[in-house]
């Protein structure tokens, strides 16, 4: 599948934003002072910026962005529609939360919990857009929602930790959730890739043409000599040897180095700590973009079967 950069940006940035919201909510519920004072507006605001920028970017790949509001109507059948509805619903409690932080009013557990649940539900809906497609074997897997949710939470936790280090309130204990979440996310992704390597295609040229009962089918001539929409949009698959290398870089940059750096950042203080966390965030961004690029580029659509691929 063609990796569209607007979708890669949307899913990674919004995922990290919702993960950050969830971390903030968890710390707020646990009574952490930095998560309950006015300074919590910073992580809340950053999450809002990431999510909003992602949502805006996601409308960029539409043929008619001005009609995007129509996408809210078919939530009864469409995961894309549900994603939109949930994403907008999440703004409600998030704004109440921000307002209460600003007024230094008591926040209570309901508003942060509600925001986090709606945020994670949005991530789940995003993952289901892909996981519900039977036409793409690499997406039609239960691991896909797990991967999306874990990576959103883990990337949000790195951002949260970076903000705490920069604010000078981080301790070594804070690096524990980062390490745990990233370990889970990395293992999830690793299992996903192992599943991919063993996946038998659902449809073959034999079933696509129904000619398999007569003998071995191969493509003799395509209907067209040049590229077309189908090949450009759904015929893109990255070479296996490149994919293997890219997978390793993605895991290293997203799941292994950031939690190690987060630990380093939490135990060292001052500007080195800030620098370390800056590096962690940069590596995380690179790793996440690579991981999401691969998610598309490694996925083969069943239409390629008709082209003998």
């Amino acid at each position, binding site marked *: 599948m063609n990796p569209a950069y607007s979708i890669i940006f949307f899913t990674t940035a919004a995922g990290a934003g919702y993960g950050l919201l969830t971390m903030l909510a968890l710390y707020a519920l646990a009574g952490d002072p930095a998560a309950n004072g006015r300074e919590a507006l910073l992580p809340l605001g950053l999450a809002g910026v990431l999510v909003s920028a992602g949502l805006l970017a996601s409308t960029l790949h539409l043929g008619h962005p001005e009609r995007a509001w129509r*996408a809210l109507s078919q939530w009864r*059948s469409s995961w894309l529609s549900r994603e939109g509805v949930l994403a907008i619903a999440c703004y409600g409690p998030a704004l109440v939360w921000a307002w209460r932080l600003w007024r230094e009013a008591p926040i209570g557990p309901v508003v942060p919990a509600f925001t986090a649940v709606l945020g994670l539900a949005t991530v789940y809906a995003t993952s289901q857009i892909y996981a519900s497609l039977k036409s*793409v074997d690499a997406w039609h897997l239960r691991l896909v929602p797990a991967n999306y949710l874990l990576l959103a939470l883990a990337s949000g936790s790195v951002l949260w930790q970076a903000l705490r280090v920069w604010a000078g309130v981080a301790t070594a204990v804070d690096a524990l959730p980062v390490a745990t979440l990233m370990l889970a996310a990395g293992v999830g992704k690793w299992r996903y890739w192992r599943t991919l390597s063993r996946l038998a295609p659902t449809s073959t040229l034999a079933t696509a043409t129904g000619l398999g009962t007569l003998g071995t089918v191969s493509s003799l001539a395509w209907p067209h000599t040049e590229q077309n929409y189908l090949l450009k949009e759904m015929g893109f698959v990255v070479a296996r040897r490149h994919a293997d290398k890219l997978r390793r870089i993605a895991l290293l940059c997203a799941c292994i180095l950031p939690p190690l750096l987060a630990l380093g950042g939490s135990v060292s203080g001052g500007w080195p700590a800030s620098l370390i966390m800056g590096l962690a965030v940069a590596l995380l961004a690179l790793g996440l973009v690579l991981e999401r690029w691969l998610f598309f580029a490694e996925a083969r659509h069943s239409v390629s079967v008709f082209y003998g691929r």
Partner: protein
Amino acid sequence: MTMLPQTTAKKLGLVIDLDTCVGCHACATSCKQWNDAGHSAPLTDTDPYGAAPDGVWFNRVHSYEVQTAHGSKTVNFPKSCLHCDNAPCVTVCPTGASFKRVEDGIVLVDADKCIGCKLCSWACPYGAREYDATDGVMKKCTLCVDRIYNENLDAAARVPACVAACPTGARSFGDLGDPASGVSALVRARGGYDLMPEQGCAPVNQYLPPRAVTPLVQQPLSRHAGGIESALLRWIDRVLS
């Protein structure tokens, strides 16, 4: 409305005979011609006379080679939207632009509602939907909805353009939901089948398999064949050998 109807009054669709299709692409070009001015017009082409022509087509003809027990065989294979009963392209649509008609089962796109998110083209396992980047909306075979009910045409012409154009009669149009229809009888007689049944789309369009190949075996002239004609042939055979 992207919920699929429970049932449709009719199941209009095509039956495509892979035995008689000669791969002439007449259906594809006539489809392009009709629909360029039809319901989903235009079928935009980009760089049509340049180095990298590209454009929207609703019907494309592949050619396959099948290695059978009796040697290899070429099978031409036209592919357009199969107007599936369980169409995943419809249910994924976030806007309600994609829908399946209750009255005849035709799957259509409402170009005024489509936001061009392309998700439906991802959901269709057959690659039957093509995005028009110039219009910013998704397009697909309309089953020539603007011909089959068109009272400005002669009754005999109220069939899809591709059906009318096919020189070998490899394409038939009718109600596949009606067991008494001609197309249903054809499907029964010839063992019509679904493409990619494992995808669970329950396509309405049916494909008829190539007829069994009768291997050509050279028959030796029989000594005992009767009649003056064979006596003559035997005599010529003797003289020549």
